[in-house]
């Protein structure tokens, strides 16, 4: 996965904070964007649009072993985690308020990369042989949908149970 340099991350994080401090404050507070600062899955459902994903997670195979943030936040550096948290928190809060997101909600390529890194964080040993000659992961061709590849191409239901 592409490595966010510390400097970029720090810069971006402070930028994001700046935005929250300004026009984003109402949104962030009202839409309970601070949910992102907790590791408790229950806080994600402060937004009703996260209800299905929460319910799905409760029925999913990883319910006992992984919470939302174990899969959806980067774990290689605290700063990066904070940055993703802040930018997702801001983005989702804004999206929720303006209601400009498209349903069904779909994970975005950047976050899919984060997700896959987390699969490997826990299952890296088990999969080392199949990943030895290159990641299964996000395709080199940007025109391809990221979620068609990688672990989730087959294990789509590990996080949230079956969709169909």
């Amino acid at each position, binding site marked *: 996965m592409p490595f966010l340099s510390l400097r970029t991350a720090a810069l971006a994080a402070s930028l994001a904070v700046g935005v929250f401090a300004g026009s984003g404050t109402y*949104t962030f507070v009202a839409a309970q964007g601070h949910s992102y600062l907790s590791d408790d899955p229950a806080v994600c459902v402060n937004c*009703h649009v996260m209800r299905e994903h929460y319910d799905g997670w409760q029925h999913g195979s990883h319910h006992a072993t992984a919470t939302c943030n174990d899969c959806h936040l980067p774990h290689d550096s605290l700063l990066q985690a904070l940055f993703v948290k802040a930018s997702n928190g801001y983005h989702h809060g804004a999206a929720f308020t303006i209601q400009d997101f498209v349903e*069904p909600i*779909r994970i975005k390529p950047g976050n899919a990369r984060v997700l896959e890194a987390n699969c490997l964080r826990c299952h890296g040993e088990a999969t080392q042989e199949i990943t030895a000659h290159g990641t299964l992961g996000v395709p080199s061709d940007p025109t391809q949908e990221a979620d*068609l590849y990688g672990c989730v191409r087959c294990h789509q239901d590990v996080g949230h149970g079956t969709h*169909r």
Partner: protein
Amino acid sequence: RNVAERRQEAKQTSLDLVRLDETVVDPAQWGKNFPRQHDAYLRTAERFSTKYGGAGSEGFAKSRLEDDPRLVTIFDGYAFAIDFNQRQGHAYMLDDQRKTKRVTQRKQTGACLHCHSSNTVAYRELGLKHGAPGKLDDPFLTDNAQKQLYAGFEASCKMPYDEATKLVSHPVTCIDCHDPQNMALRITKPGLLDGIDALARSEDPVPHLPTVEKWRKGDRKVRYDPNREATRQEMRSLVCAQCHVEYYCGAKATLFFPWGKGLKAEQIEAVYAEYKFADGTPFSDWKHKRTGADVYKAQHPEFELWSQGVHARSGVSCADCHMPYVREGAIKISDHHVKSPLLDVARACQVCHRFPEQEIQARVATIQDRTHHLMSRAEDALVQLIGELEAAKQAGAAEAKLQPVWALQRKAQWRLDFVNAENSMGFHAPQEAARILGEAIDYARQGQLALRDAK
């Protein structure tokens, strides 16, 4: 709208302004309690088109006869040769029926109304007039109410269309699909209640209707009744199967769904082949004008074709695709603007299929184009057979020589029509549609061969 408003909305989903009961037909009344569903319901009056769907599909005429004049030859002698159009929204169903030349220029019975109007109450009122027991506000599932329904249904089938149509005033409405007490889905049309019972008694595997399979394993003493047995997910298809099915509804027998041997094209054909009218004559829809063959007419077997597809097997219902959930504020409701899913791929398909909209559209187009292409091939073969059969008849061929060729025309025509009359252009079960067309081609060509060999 801001977040505070949205919270508010979340709580306002079901108003209780009007007391709904078994006598309220007018959807506007129901709409007072359920404004969102009602608003969408009204939008079935909007016109749209997709490549092969909707009223006047892209590049096709609204009149299916103008669009494909071969159909005039194929239906010659039958009402469908005068007037046959692309379907459109539910709002039009009653009007379109009243205005079609099939009704204005041909005699039809009240049976037609079974699928083109809100008749739950109309049937019961008529039933009461014909001596059925109880009162109109008896709950629908009581014995009395059911007797009213059936008595009215049967009486209406015996009335001339012009008279019967005066008994109704709405296209399908809330009460035909919903229990006014709790909005649960329910089946109100006798055609389906009888049809599904016949299906339950057949041997045909129905993996997509698990409660039918379950009923078969029981003692079978009480008939299969979807209102008692069916799961919610099954009901999400069965409410549509009240109408989107093959049927017989001519003057010689009460309307019925021919499912006693199963739902496949050849199983339905076999039911008709064995069927005798009350007067002892063998079943047929009409005598083909040019060839003299007794032939069958297939109408919109959406439920039957869907039954053969992988969606049905996977438990995907009609409502999942044609009435997908839409978010209204904090809650999700069913989109009561029943329409082509291709107009709303995000909600109708992408909840299950993680592919871009363009890709999903392309998949459907691939399936439909294949069907369309093969169907055209089958039509060519059938039209050639009809032409040659007509010529042989005119040349004075003996009936004994024509008989086996008629049988082949009947088989070919039935299969072609099964796919053509179905409204998804093969999408509901792609391989099955192609298989049926392959057989249609075979029988039509065999007919042509038989004619030459008979000479």
